[in-house]
């Protein structure tokens, strides 16, 4: 039987990120898949030795632009654990809101890419169109569309005004309506199901044994989600994971689609229950010699009022003029972390784990990041052989690969 060997990646239009798979195919059936990694490896864990533990927040945010917020969250929770800082409740809620908004944008992004993987361009366009609303929320509330940079050790850098909360809720209502319009297509369309159902099946046992996480795990019938551990405000909000049972690409897609809608509810609930108060705690540590640090959303007179006339985008209602409370966000970071911690949060792609070790200097001794895709690659290698070449993009995308966090 004649075989074709295909270099799949690193530069390949269906791969959003560089990854190389040497695929051996026979009549377009994959018989072997061998990966090469390292095209995105930067070695940023090592940067903790030349950046102080506060600066590392900005670095870990850039492990991956898509879940930047959650990387920072996981890292900050770890440091706070080591230093024994109690984060104000309002900050916890804000972290939850931004974290879930991240999940929404990431899932929408993924749903689009997934649609593109099976050649459904207009569906891709529609999901990304909706996603722009979420990006607008990010930009309006955090100051950047992607790398939001709101989490810091001790709390968050920005606050949400009541008007902003209201505006976010409006946006969510519109987005949700638009997403629901696409629901039948992504979950029930004949051609879509033809391309997803039964592709890349990961059985329940395999999922656990190979260490799958996130939608990959939940798509195979395990109700396990790190949000159940109650980080940020989840302890108060309560949480039930979403599960599908078929273990195929379709199930993973369904999990993500339903999680998107679930996240809307979480955001709404969090906004409704958000307590008033501080958004950042003073961080006290063993050593008292550090300079006070001011955490604030914006300062001074650089802000011009928002120009409504120019705002003619998809936004139904223009955002209110910003009235970000200033000054109340001051927090002081004193001291240096000394000790070890392991923290976990649920990223869009699954469970993220940080191992942090400080030895009482301003630089961390070790920052170890176990990202979800890192855990999902072994299952991927297990489910690729035997599929059709045309299904390779679908299956690879179905784990929602994030190579930049895998390799860091």
């Amino acid at each position, binding site marked *: *039987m004649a*075989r074709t*060997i295909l*270099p799949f990646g*690193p*530069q390949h239009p269906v791969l959003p990120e560089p990854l*190389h798979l040497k695929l051996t195919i026979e*009549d377009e059936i994959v018989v072997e898949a*061998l990966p*090469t990694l390292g095209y995105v490896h930067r070695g940023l864990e090592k940067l903790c030795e030349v950046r102080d533990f506060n600066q590392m927040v900005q670095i870990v945010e850039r492990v991956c632009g898509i879940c930047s917020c959650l990387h920072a969250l996981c890292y900050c929770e770890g440091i706070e654990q080591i230093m024994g800082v109690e984060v104000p409740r309002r900050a916890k809620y804000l972290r939850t809101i931004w974290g879930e908004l991240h999940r929404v944008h990431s899932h929408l992004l993924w749903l689009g890419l997934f649609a593109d993987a099976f050649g459904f361009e207009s569906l891709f366009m529609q999901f990304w169109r909706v996603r722009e609303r979420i990006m607008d929320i990010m930009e309006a509330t955090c100051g950047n569309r992607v790398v939001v940079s709101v989490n810091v050790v001790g709390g968050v850098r920005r606050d949400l005004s009541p008007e902003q909360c209201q505006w976010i809720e409006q946006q969510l209502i519109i987005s949700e309506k638009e997403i629901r319009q696409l629901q039948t297509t992504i979950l029930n369309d004949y051609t879509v199901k033809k391309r997803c159902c039964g592709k890349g099946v990961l059985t329940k046992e395999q999922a656990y044994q190979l260490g799958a996480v996130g939608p990959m795990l939940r798509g195979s019938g395990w109700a396990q989600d790190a949000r159940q551990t109650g980080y940020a405000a989840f302890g108060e909000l309560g949480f039930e994971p979403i599960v599908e049972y078929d273990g195929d690409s379709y199930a993973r897609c369904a999990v993500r689609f339903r999680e998107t809608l679930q996240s809307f509810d979480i955001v709404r609930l969090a906004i409704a229950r958000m307590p008033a108060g501080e958004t950042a705690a003073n961080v006290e540590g063993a050593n008292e010699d550090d300079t006070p640090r001011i955490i604030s959303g914006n300062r001074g007179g650089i802000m011009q009022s928002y120009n409504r006339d120019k705002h003619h985008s998809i936004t139904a209602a223009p955002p209110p003029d910003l009235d970000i409370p200033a000054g109340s966000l001051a927090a002081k970071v004193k001291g240096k972390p000394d000790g070890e911690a392991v923290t976990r949060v649920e990223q869009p792609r699954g469970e993220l784990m940080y191992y942090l070790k400080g030895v009482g200097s301003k630089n961390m001794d070790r920052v170890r990041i176990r990202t979800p895709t890192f855990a999902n690659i072994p299952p991927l290698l297990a489910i690729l052989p035997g599929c059709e070449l045309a299904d390779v993009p679908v299956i690879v995308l179905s784990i929602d690969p994030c190579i930049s966090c895998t390799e860091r």
Partner: protein
Amino acid sequence: MLDTLVFVTVLLPFLVAAVLLVLREQNVRKVILVATAGVLALASLAMLRGGAFIMSPAPLYDTLITLGDFVILFVVLFVGIKRKNQIIIWLSVAQIIGLIILDFFMVKEHGNIPAFFADDLSLVMVLIISIVGSLIAVYGIGYMKEHEEHLHLTKSKQPQFFFFIVLFLGAMNGLVLANNLLWMYFFWECTTLCSFMLIGHDDTEIARKNAERALWMNVLGGTAFLFGIILLQKVVGTLSLQEILARGPEFAVAGGAILVPMFLLVFAGMTKAAQAPFQSWLTGAMVAPTPVSALLHSSTMVKAGVYIIVRLAPVYAGTYFSNFVALFGAFVFLATACLAAGQSNGKKILAYSTISNLALIIACAGINTPAAITAAILLILFHAISKALMFLCVGAIEQKIGSRDIEDMRGLFAVMPRTALVAIIGIMTMMLPPFGMLMAKWMAIESAHGQFLLMIMLALGSGVTVLFWCRWAGLMLGTPVAKAKPEAQDITVRAPLYILAGLALVVSFFSPVVYNSLVAPVVKMYYKAAPYALPYGNFDSPVGIFLVYPLFLLLGLGFYFALKQARKVTAAQCSQPYMCGEQQTVDGKPGFLGPLGLHVPVQSGNYYLEQFFGETMLSKWINVIALAVLVIMLFGGAL
């Protein structure tokens, strides 16, 4: 003059063959072969100029033929006994008995029937046999020399080889010129024997096995042939082909009784043409040296099978039987094209494609309209040329690269540019307009219009045909080298290649002339109508039009223009293939940098679509269906 020509085309090969059998001297053999080839070619051309004729040789020959019949049958019987093959034994015994009954009890007026008769159809066949066949024989000189070197034979078996080859040429000429069906039967059996001997030539285990299979299938056909003529004698009272044809229309009206002998003869033709369910002997025959495959198993002997079917077409025209023949042909055309698509063995592809094309011819005979018969005759002609060319190419390639697998022919252009180009020309003439094969296929499809089932099968079949030819042609070009060094080749190998390639192009170009002078008269003779008018040399009928010269002109110009553009591309503009950014050439082999930092040379394979075209799975079904159609064909009249 006529005597001489018939003598030269039929008897001379027998004599030359005898000489070659005893001759051990290489060079003399070469001279004799080339000379015979030349003489045969000239004689066939001369015969063509002479036109239709009828001839009766001396009565002595009749006796010789009868004797020859028995000799062959006993040889076959002997083989059967030696190989302990029950089928062969019983079939040959049956034939011996049948022949005795026919020769001594039924046929009274021995010698009254003219032995030979030729119309344009026969003459076209003679032309093919004498020119294409001779070219293949010449090719055999260079080929066999190398072949035996590869096999490290201590004692050359070439005398035997050429004995059968040349003998076969004579037999074939005899077969197509024969008027007396008894004579035809003799030549028919001759070709069976030659084929058997030549398939087994290399004397390997598999060769012996395949030869045996070919023998029993062909002997089965021979038996059908014999009993066909016995019945014919009974029903019609004559064995003169010419007379039967002349009285064709009246049988057609009468129907019934004539159809059983017709069935037997057509059945014989189908076994000889290796139609399903007997296709396995032909694919098995590919173990023989390539000249054998080219000569016997593609361009000539198997054509004897379709020749008899086309020959008799006017007799069964307009009957239900004819429709079934068409259906059968169309089905086998489609089925074997699918089988060919599932193969990577070059000769097997050729074998299946041969069967497929023969089936198309049979389908045309079955459609049995003037246009369809025209298509059939043109297909016989063009197919012979192109297919012989393809076989010779594969032979030459196999000797050079040591494989007949098309996967191994990837980038052949870099190794043997000339042969690769010739092979590509061969492939183009097989499947693209404006070449003859395609034109004939066009006629076939258009003549089938109105019969939807036929159309569907022809449509699907021609789609599949393009699939396997096109990828073969394409992959031979796949080479990173811009300019390749021409390969060395024996002149006796190269000349036939070039001549055949030239013929394929030129004869296609002159297809209107061929049609006018060779095909139209026969068709008119039997069907009282010419299917096509030729305004400006274009085939025109109410059903459709095929532009020969404009297409040649425009496509030719286009091709020339394209070639000119392609020449402008310099080696400097050649870049490495797209490999997702990991391209890397090591030792001139393109590839990519794979996992673990290792160079992975490119490797690609065609799709053989096991799922759809798997040989074992498909063959089973095809055989069952083909057999069913045959049975219905036989008993259909009773229903």
